[in-house]
């Protein structure tokens, strides 16, 4: 089919062999690429009930129909497997420069299975697969690993995805990194790569998937670029990245602080976007062909971290360390960002676990020297998590096991074992539905529902009509993930734009309703994966603290939550237990 190669590459790490397999047009037309294809391959290839960190798990990398084109927002790849953090569906995406090069190898997806008996790195290109010894790289941080494998392979235009020590040590929230600071961050995909003893994968190639209507695509891109010149959202990303949200979230009291006990941080002005721009040396950085340039390459100008340059921090990293751990220094947060990136750990989960440790100490549940606001202590604990040293070994197992061990399950904030992003669901009630129903745990990205709630498109306090609007957003963003299109374009690329994009690339002429049905189909497929793994309504819950510790007069109630959840199941065509009927 246009936009694809109809090929997947299956790599067996146990045998150090590979084979090329065909994907039929019917599968691509039904699921498109990206999330649809990745989830389909998981359903077809993964036996239910496998242990996530065993050789039986599969690690699947995919691109989408827009990958390799010059569509702004199209330079992202996806990773799929069974999550070692939640025991359920895992998906994670990363930007940077890798996706177009992955696509240029001539495959639509890469399925890694088995496990190597010693560290390896893979060289995947349009010429085939080479297995390289990686013993000399084991233990190395992500930056050095990326530099080293690219130098060793020495091919023009090559790009790499890598893991750090956290992935090697099977830290359950380890991520896969590329271009130093871009991360497939959530659900522990890096630990699965580590369990297969794959330290890195280098990609290069010169293939280009055929495009059905190239002129139509270029005309659309010209129009999008023109609109981008005056779009205020684009300007905001270009100037502030995601850091502009710190002010709004604090003013609106939705900035989780001191391990979810407050909705704003008294020192937020020391960690907001204006502080970053006024006190650090900041340059904007873009993925290929993108005019948003949301990446903020920031260099610290003073203090003990002077000279440190990191692309970041994003809003979520600022919330996780600034809010939750009460760290009132942007410079320190940038340093934690650097540590997590080099060690290869998700900043959201890592920040939550550090704050949970602070809370455990405060409540007298743990004899350890770490108070809210202790920057040195945060850095120390992050290193201990990645190396599994001391209490870091327990924290590396994630929030579920840690909270059981410390007798604090009633305090722990997570859904299905994964912690939420920085949007307070007691105020932004739709986010409680998002956190509860996301197949990967408390995820903010499936519908980015904070967007319509902050913007007043729907009243944050109401439950009426919320599930219906939530589904509209979730379906549209599911289509984004099948194309693998950056969701920061959500205000500029609507249903009609998506129809134009998919027709120009693949030749598929689809109505809005048909496209939305495909989005819903993919969402339901992810649900089926989790149902097969034993998940159900019992797991679509949010922490009791959200009900027992209200925030303000309009705080989320059990009734609010139940109403939205049942509406959601009904509108999705699932039964009252959340099981898809078809």
């Amino acid at each position, binding site marked *: 089919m246009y936009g694809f190669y109809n090929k997947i590459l299956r790599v067996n790490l146990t045998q150090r062999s590979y084979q090329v397999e065909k994907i039929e047009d019917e599968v691509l037309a039904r699921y498109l690429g990206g999330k649809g294809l990745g989830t389909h391959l998981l359903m077809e290839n993964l036996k239910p009930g496998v242990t996530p960190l065993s050789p039986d798990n599969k690690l699947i990398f995919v691109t989408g129909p827009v990958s390799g084109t010059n569509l702004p927002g199209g330079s992202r790849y996806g990773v799929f497997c069974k999550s070692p953090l939640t025991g359920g569906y895992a998906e994670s995406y990363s930007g940077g420069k890798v996706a177009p090069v992955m696509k240029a190898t001539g495959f639509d997806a890469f399925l890694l299975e088995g496990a190597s008996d010693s560290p390896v790195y893979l060289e995947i290109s349009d010429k085939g697969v080479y297995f390289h010894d990686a013993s000399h790289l084991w233990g190395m941080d992500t930056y050095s690993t990326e530099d080293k494998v690219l130098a060793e392979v020495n091919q023009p235009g090559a790009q790499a995805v890598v893991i750090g020590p956290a992935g090697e040590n099977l830290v359950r929230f380890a991520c896969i990194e590329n271009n130093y600071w871009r991360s497939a961050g959530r659900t522990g995909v890096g630990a699965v790569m580590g369990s297969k003893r794959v330290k890195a994968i280098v990609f290069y190639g010169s293939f280009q998937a055929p495009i059905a209507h190239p002129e139509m695509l270029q005309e659309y891109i010209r129009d999008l670029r023109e609109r981008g010149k005056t779009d*205020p*959202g684009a*300007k*905001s*990303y270009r*100037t*502030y*990245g*995601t850091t*502009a*949200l710190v*002010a*709004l979230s604090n*003013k*609106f*009291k939705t900035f989780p602080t001191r391990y979810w006990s407050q909705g704003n941080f008294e020192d937020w002005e020391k960690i907001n*976007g*204006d502080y970053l721009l006024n006190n650090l040396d900041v340059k904007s950085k873009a993925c290929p062909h993108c005019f948003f340039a*949301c990446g903020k390459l920031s260099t610290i100008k003073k203090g003990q971290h002077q000279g440190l340059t990191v692309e970041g921090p994003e*809003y*979520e990293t600022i919330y996780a360390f600034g809010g939750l751990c009460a760290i009132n220094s942007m410079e320190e947060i940038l340093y934690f960002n650097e540590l997590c990136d080099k060690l290869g750990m998700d900043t959201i989960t890592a920040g939550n676990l550090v704050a949970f440790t602070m809370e455990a100490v405060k409540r007298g549940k743990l004899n350890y020297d770490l108070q809210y606001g202790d920057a040195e202590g945060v850095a120390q604990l992050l290193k201990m998590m990645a190396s599994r040293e001391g209490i870091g070994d327990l924290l590396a197992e994630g929030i579920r096991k840690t909270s059981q061990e410390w007798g604090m399950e009633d305090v722990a904030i997570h859904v299905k074992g994964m912690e939420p*992003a920085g949007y307070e669901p007691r105020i932004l009630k739709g986010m409680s539905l998002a956190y509860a129903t996301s197949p990967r745990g408390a995820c*903010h*990205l499936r519908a*980015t529902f*904070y*967007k319509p709630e*902050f*913007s*007043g498109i729907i*009243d*944050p306090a109401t439950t009426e009509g919320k599930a219906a609007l939530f589904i509209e957003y979730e379906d549209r963003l599911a289509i984004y993930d099948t194309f693998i299109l950056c*969701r*920061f374009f959500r*205000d500029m690329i609507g249903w009609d734009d998506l129809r134009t994009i998919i027709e120009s690339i693949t030749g598929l002429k689809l109505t809005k309703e048909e496209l939305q049905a495909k989005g819903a189909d993919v969402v339901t497929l992810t649900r089926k994966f989790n149902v097969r793994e034993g998940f159900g309504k019992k797991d679509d819950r949010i922490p009791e603290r959200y009900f027992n510790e209200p925030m303000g007069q309009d705080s989320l109630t059990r009734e609010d939550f139940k109403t939205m959840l049942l509406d959601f199941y009904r509108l999705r065509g699932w039964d009252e237990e959340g099981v898809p009927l078809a």
Partner: protein
Amino acid sequence: MRVNVTLHAILSEYKPQTTDGTSFMIEIEPKSTIAELLKVLHIPEDSATIFLVKGKLKKQTEVLEEGDIIDLFPPIAGG
């Protein structure tokens, strides 16, 4: 009547020349709405899309009162 306005993020470029910071008091007609305040400040409609009055989310049609504390934000760039 006088209200207290804070312009956040990229809206700072619309601060009146007579003020130093992005947080300032401004004199507007009694019973002005948020939409009318935006016109006074020359802020295009699509540039400011989130409005808080005394920390509560409001629509453009909200009628303002003497002494209101107003936070104006551009479209959300986050997540």
